[in-house]
């Protein structure tokens, strides 16, 4: 589709931009910066602050003849308006002449700034924004040196208004640009903050419970052009110029949001590097300039006092600290003895380099390696994952998105945001889920099924199987048929390993039958539980359904970044039978407590590596802090053990491991760290030090990553798996069905050390529909012993009208082990 281009002149620079571009953006394209406060390139303009006033002239047209009026020299005659116009609300037009630097404009800017500053407290020395504040920058550049207003008449307002426990408001500093209010309403659909009163009395209020109840609230502190909104995490933490910035990735979900970690060396931490805050780093194909609050605040685990710092070996019944040499030797001798009776179990939190060295070590011994997790289907993404060049930001009319069995808002918030925005731009969104989710209201068609019918639902969406289907499914089929591009997200809402594996196969079948695979903006995306689950699949790791028996038979179990004993009592039982357990971890997990040898690993902030996101984008993260002494990177530990056994694995640098990896794995062929670090100009330009201000988020100079081509895009033949049928879920008398769901703020090992989020974390509780509760005999807010897979845990009942009537919902990682749909009973306490 050819976009109509419009030609105009800005300060004598000829510019050609697509029709509909605003004057501010057009100016930015040629490097002319028009100052703004309220305008933000990601939001609709409102023209509230008036700082972007410019002089605009348009070619005169003779009304009688409809011909342009010409000057004597033949050039079109330009008529300038009597007043200045806001550049942020005015779209470009043909022949327009914009003046941004004349006296009239400078005078206007000076006056506007003088007005804005009438009630600004000018407490820059204590303000967290001081040093990266557009109000400071613009006042220095355009403002008056002195104010004509009386200092005594300044408004005196509250300086510490908590909008909830995460974000604080300083009413005096607010310049009423409404960026935060508009962000919450337009971008994340959480209109929980608003303006009350008017004129000088205008103030930001929130009436939600908990206050400022939004999982994207931290972003408002980035885009706030003054220090009115601050996070309680960073408040008074450091001045912006004192911190170092390191590029990193978020490790909490499969989106792979690009981050910048701000670090400072501190006396109160004994001279250690301390992470002061996490900021988004622009990547328009991944997270644009946003991150969720979990990504922003839940980094404290890396600095936890509970981290393991030295290798430990079981001597007698105790784990005692030993030297690395002794630990590595012990590991090597045990592994040598075990040989092919070695089993390696890795978690999706490890980087590709770690996973590669671990699988090389294990295959060298003839052992087997598995992934710890209850979600399958990653191997299918290698065939029909989204094609190289996929960008959800490009989705609009003519594209369709199907989301199956996933509550994206809780599982992968930034994908939720991007899918929602795609739907608002006109993409057809089809949501299939067993319960209402936050995505429903943006969907063209919502398909509701009962837990257990996921595979059937997806299969019925294949147009050629069109049989006797419901109206919703018909609408879904219409949506898919009418779309040029289709992306399918599948998750694990209410599903275990068996269910997700079958669902992935069904989704692949749908994509293949409708020919939506093997090219950009088409294919399958998995909503994984971990940041690098996809990477583990790429390197050949698979989750095992019979893991318990395999562990029980193994002579040595080498477990890295996984906690099978904590997640599943059956696996804990199996591990008791394992000959020797080596655990490589950050924390003393239940599995580590059972281990014979514990090896401390480095956190992602202390080292470098790569992850593969759910969209199969390989991205790099860099070391942010100097490592604490003791722990070593996982890939290095594996390589050092291998060295003792006589194999040569790369142990020096992650980049060298990656080099070997790309030689060994066809999907990664030719990839290097240099390629992953390449950047190109991204639009909109959101620089940190610009007068045209997009937020305190960071520019991306450290790499946009590379999306892998799926096999289908490389024109390799497909291997279509059979879609297994799942047994129907039915609860016998006296029992009821419980299914696992994923919640954003769970009580996992990487989240608990962030005390700031404790109030918002899920409690050990099940969500039950009142009707189901009556049938089972449960009351709201009642605590009872839930018997699940033979294990009894004390949980609370929370009535939830949105829960299905057929099954109770149990969040994962809240202290009650659940792997997939299971039958539960209420324990009868006698006496």
């Amino acid at each position, binding site marked *: 589709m050819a976009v109509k281009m419009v030609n105009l002149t800005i300060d004598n620079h000829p510019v050609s931009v697509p029709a509909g571009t605003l004057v501010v953006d057009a100016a930015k394209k040629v490097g002319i910066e028009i100052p703004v406060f309220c305008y933000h390139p990601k939001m609709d303009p409102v023209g509230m602050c008036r700082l972007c006033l410019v002089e605009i002239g348009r070619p005169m047209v003779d009304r009688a003849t409809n011909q342009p009026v010409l000057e004597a020299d033949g050039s079109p005659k330009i008529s300038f308006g009597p007043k200045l116009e806001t550049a942020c609300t005015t779209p470009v037009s043909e022949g327009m002449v914009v003046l941004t630097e004349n006296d009239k404009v400078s005078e206007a800017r000076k006056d506007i700034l003088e007005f804005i500053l009438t009630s600004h407290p000018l*407490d820059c*020395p*204590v303000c967290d924004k*001081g040093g990266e504040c557009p109000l400071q920058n613009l006042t220095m550049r355009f403002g008056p040196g002195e104010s004509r207003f009386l200092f005594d008449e300044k408004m005196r307002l509250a300086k510490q208004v908590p909008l909830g426990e995460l974000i604080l408001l300083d009413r005096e500093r607010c310049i009423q640009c409404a960026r935060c209010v508009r962000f919450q309403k337009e971008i994340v659909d959480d209109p929980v903050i608003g303006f009350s009163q008017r004129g000088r009395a205008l103030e930001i209020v929130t009436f939600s419970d908990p206050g400022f109840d939004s999982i994207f609230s931290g972003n408002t502190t980035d885009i706030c052009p003054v220090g009115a909104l601050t996070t309680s995490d960073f408040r*008074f933490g450091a*001045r912006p110029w*004192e911190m170092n910035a390191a590029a990193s990735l978020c490790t909490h979900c499969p989106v792979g949001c690009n981050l910048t970690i701000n670090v400072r060396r*501190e*006396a*109160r931490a004994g001279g250690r590097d301390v992470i002061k805050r996490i900021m988004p780093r622009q990547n328009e194909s991944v997270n644009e300039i946003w991150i969720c609050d979990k990504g922003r605040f839940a980094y404290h685990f890396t600095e936890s006092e509970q981290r393991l710092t030295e290798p430990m070996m079981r001597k007698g019944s105790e784990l005692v600290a030993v030297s690395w040499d002794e630990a590595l030797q012990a590991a090597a001798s045990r592994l040598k003895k075990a040989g092919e009776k070695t089993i390696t179990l890795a978690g999706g939190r490890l980087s590709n380099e770690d996973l590669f060295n671990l699988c090389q070590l294990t295959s060298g011994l003839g052992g087997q390696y598995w992934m710890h997790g209850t979600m399958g289907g990653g191997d299918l993404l290698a065939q029909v994952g989204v094609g190289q060049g996929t960008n959800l930001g490009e989705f609009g009319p003519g594209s369709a998105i199907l989301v199956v069995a996933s509550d994206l808002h809780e599982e992968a918030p930034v994908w939720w945001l991007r899918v929602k925005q795609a739907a608002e731009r006109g993409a057809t969104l089809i949501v299939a889920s067993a319960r209402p989710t936050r995505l429903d209201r943006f969907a063209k068609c919502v398909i509701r099924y009962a837990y257990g019918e996921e595979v059937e639902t997806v299969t019925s969406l294949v147009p050629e199987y069109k049989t006797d289907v419901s109206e919703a499914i018909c609408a879904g089929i219409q949506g898919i048929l009418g779309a040029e591009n289709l992306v399918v997200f599948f998750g694990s809402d209410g599903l275990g390993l068996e269910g997700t594996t079958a669902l992935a196969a069904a989704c692949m079948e749908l994509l293949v039958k409708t020919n939506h695979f093997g090219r950009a903006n088409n294919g399958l995306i998995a909503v994984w539980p971990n940041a690098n689950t996809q990477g583990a699949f790429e390197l050949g790791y698979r989750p095992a359904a019979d893991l318990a028996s395999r562990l029980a038979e193994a002579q040595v179990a080498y477990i890295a970044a996984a906690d099978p004993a904590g997640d599943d009592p059956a696996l804990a039982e199996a591990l008791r039978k394992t000959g020797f357990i080596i655990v490589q971890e950050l924390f003393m997990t239940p599995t580590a407590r059972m281990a014979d040898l514990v090896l401390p690993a480095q956190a992602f902030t202390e080292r470098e590596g790569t992850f593969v996101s759910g969209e199969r984008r390989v991205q790099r993260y860099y070391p942010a802090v100097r490592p604490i002494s003791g722990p070593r990177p996982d890939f290095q530990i594996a390589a050092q053990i291998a060295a003792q056994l006589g194999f040569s694995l790369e142990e020096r640098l992650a980049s060298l491991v990656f080099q070997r990896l790309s030689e060994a794995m066809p999907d990664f062929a030719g990839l290097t760290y240099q390629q992953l670090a390449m950047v190109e100009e991204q639009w909109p330009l959101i620089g940190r030090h610009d007068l045209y201000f997009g937020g305190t988020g960071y520019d991306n100079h450290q790499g946009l990553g590379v999306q892998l081509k799926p096999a289908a895009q490389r024109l390799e033949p497909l291997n279509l798996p059979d879609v297994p049928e799942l047994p129907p879920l039915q609860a016998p008398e006296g029992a009821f069905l419980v299914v696992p769901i994923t919640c954003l703020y769970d009580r996992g090992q990487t989240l608990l050390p962030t005390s700031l989020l404790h109030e918002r974390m899920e409690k050990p509780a099940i969500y039950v529909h009142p009707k189901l509760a009556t049938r089972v005999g449960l009351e709201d807010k009642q605590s009872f012993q839930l018997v699940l897979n033979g294990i009894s845990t004390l949980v609370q009942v929370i009535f939830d009208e949105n829960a299905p009537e057929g099954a109770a919902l149990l969040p994962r990682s809240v202290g009650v082990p659940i792997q997939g749909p299971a039958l539960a009973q209420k324990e009868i306490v006698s006496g």
Partner: protein
Amino acid sequence: MFRGILEGMRQTLRSFFEKPVTIQYPEQKRPVRARFKGRHVLKRYENGLEKCIGCALCAAACPADAIFVEAAENTDERRFSPGERYASTYEINMLRCIYCGFCEDACPTEAIVLGDNYELSFMDRAASIYTKDMLLEPVPAVDKLTPQSTPPGVFTRSVPEMKDPED
């Protein structure tokens, strides 16, 4: 030849009766000039609250990178300085300091002042780092020690209103 010797002796004898220019340091100390820049002092208000608000502008202005500041938040129950922010850590490395006085110029609350103490010698490098306790001036009275408990809503301004410096 004798003339030369006598001339020398005369000079010596004359100096003998002149008032000496040397003083008996360290028993006796010479007062410093008004603009002398010696060791830093962190000032207090009359009510005992610290003037320093932990803004770290002194650290930013310091050409020798000698100053290190960490800030924390005041509450009315535990108040160190007016306003919301105070310096929880304040360190100056006296070996690095070049006594240029830029920190004084940068300070928005006139909290840091280069005083008249020039007796700075150390037995090791660690001793050259002066912490906040060593830099803060003594309290005017025992009941004015920081942190103080203050009535709510009184000390809300970090930066006091000040006149332009006159000299």
